């Protein structure tokens, strides 16, 4: 982890809809952040706090209503496929193509020449442990394997920055644990800057160098916790005292915010049939 700044978020605010609209939502409020090159930063917070929105803004998938994001020395105004790769929570693999075809398709969009595509695809599939499943269809794979494939696709793009939006959110506890450990090993070998959104306290503490804790909606960064522990994180880290104390600290920070978010959503559900916007 160097001191160089990879991503600079300056005063970003975002709202959905217009004031007075039934669906008006203030997702993010004046958020600023500097992410160093090569660090793994976790964004954690209650539902609806805007962490996924912030990730979309950083990735150029959304333009903020106020503020700006800088990557390298350019302002982010749209997707930057050469600098930023995205892994989504939902299964974003194309169901009609095989795993390896999916991986290569990403590179096709980016503009990588064909012979290089094959080489990189094989390499990244091996790195995530899917070398034997290259010719399978996503429908034939388990949820965990599909997310590995999505990760392989993102890795093959060889970008400097990797954004992951609750990539393990749809998986069961045990798969999450295994994937978390493998991810840590994998990422220790690369020098990517990673921003990772999660709901899981344990996951955040296990993987991250720093954890940014969000307040309830409208979201803003409440506090940033540093975790000094070398990568790759060993499985024993989870049962250590250090882990538990950091996790407890996170819990304390989050507990009230989560309660606030839940009661707020209950209030909104009573007054309208659907919630507007999405965090």
């Amino acid at each position, binding site marked *: 982890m160097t001191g160089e700044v990879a991503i600079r978020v300056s005063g970003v605010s975002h709202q959905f809809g217009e004031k007075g609209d039934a669906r008006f939502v203030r997702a993010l409020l004046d958020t600023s952040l500097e992410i160093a090159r090569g660090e793994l930063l976790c964004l954690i917070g209650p539902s609806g706090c805007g962490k996924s929105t912030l990730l979309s803004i950083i990735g150029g998938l959304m333009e903020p209503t106020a503020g700006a994001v800088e990557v390298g020395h350019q302002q982010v105004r749209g997707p930057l496929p050469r600098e930023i790769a995205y892994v989504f929570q*939902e299964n974003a693999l194309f169901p009609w193509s095989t795993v390896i075809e999916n991986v290569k398709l990403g590179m096709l969009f980016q503009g990588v020449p064909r012979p290089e595509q094959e080489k990189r695809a094989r390499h990244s599939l091996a790195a995530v442990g899917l070398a034997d499943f290259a010719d399978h269809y996503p429908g034939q794979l388990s949820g965990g394997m599909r997310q590995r494939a999505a990760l392989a696709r993102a890795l093959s793009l060889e970008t400097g920055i990797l954004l992951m939006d609750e990539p393990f959110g749809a998986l069961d506890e045990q798969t999450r644990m295994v994937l978390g450990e493998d991810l840590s090993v994998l990422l220790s070998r690369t020098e990517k800057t990673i921003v990772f959104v999660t709901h899981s306290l344990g996951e955040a503490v296990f993987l991250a160098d720093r954890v940014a804790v969000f307040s309830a909606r409208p979201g803003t960064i409440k506090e940033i916790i540093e975790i000094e522990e070398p990568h790759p994180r060993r499985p024993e880290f989870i049962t250590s005292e250090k882990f538990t104390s950091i996790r407890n600290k996170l819990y304390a920070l989050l507990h009230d915010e989560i309660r606030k978010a839940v009661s707020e959503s209950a209030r909104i559900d009573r007054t309208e049939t659907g919630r507007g916007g999405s965090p």
Partner: protein
Amino acid sequence: MAHAPAVDDTRDLTGAAGRQGVGAFLRARPWLARLGVIVVLFAVWEIAARFFVDKMFLAPPSLVYMRLYAVFATAGVPAALRITFFELTVAFLISVAIGLSVGLAVGLSRFTHRSFMPIILLLYGTPQITILPLFVLYFGIGPASKIAFGVSHGMFPIIVTVIAGVQNIKPILLTSAKSMGASRWQIFRWVIFPHMVPSFFTGMRLAMSAVLLGVLLAELYGSSVGIGYFTTLFTQSFDPTRLLGLVSVLAAMAIALNELARRAEMRFSRWRSA
């Protein structure tokens, strides 16, 4: 999912007959039971035709199928069958061409979809049989009107399913492609188009039935060289034997074509898992 009461589960499994032997034998082989049903139906037909219905109006299957060759021997019938088949093929191909192009044109843009979809659905829902005489008026009594009427029926299912295939794509797939830097053309070629293919084949299966209906309706209304000429001939000359034979041949052709379309649909929908 049986609706038999849970308490009486075992009774349901062994069945009301309860006999071993024939009952159990049939139960293990539903295809045999189906065959049996068909045999029974043919037997009913046979008995009704032989003993209960005037020979002018109904012929028994034994006679019909023994005399099937006579149908083909009738002057003009094989040619008429060929022409009808030709009409079906051309109508189907044109339906596919129009259906695919209109479907894509309307489905790809939210605006065109909102504007034209109600019009398309309105046209799809009208009973086209009421304007069949107009088709004959404008296209003549020959194959052209049959093809046109067939296309008129066949293009709608394809238009509607292609539009659905384009519009129903999960937004996450489009977002994912955009995040990887895909151009508009790339998104169409690699994401929208492959996603649309299974719906397209479903549309083609439906179009096959629709084209069959359209062409046959037009033939039955009045035909100079197609199969409709002979159905009218056999009807008006009170020749149930040959009429039933001809209808059987046409029914077999319809079943074969529908099955072909169904298999093509399954082949190209493989990635559409549950």
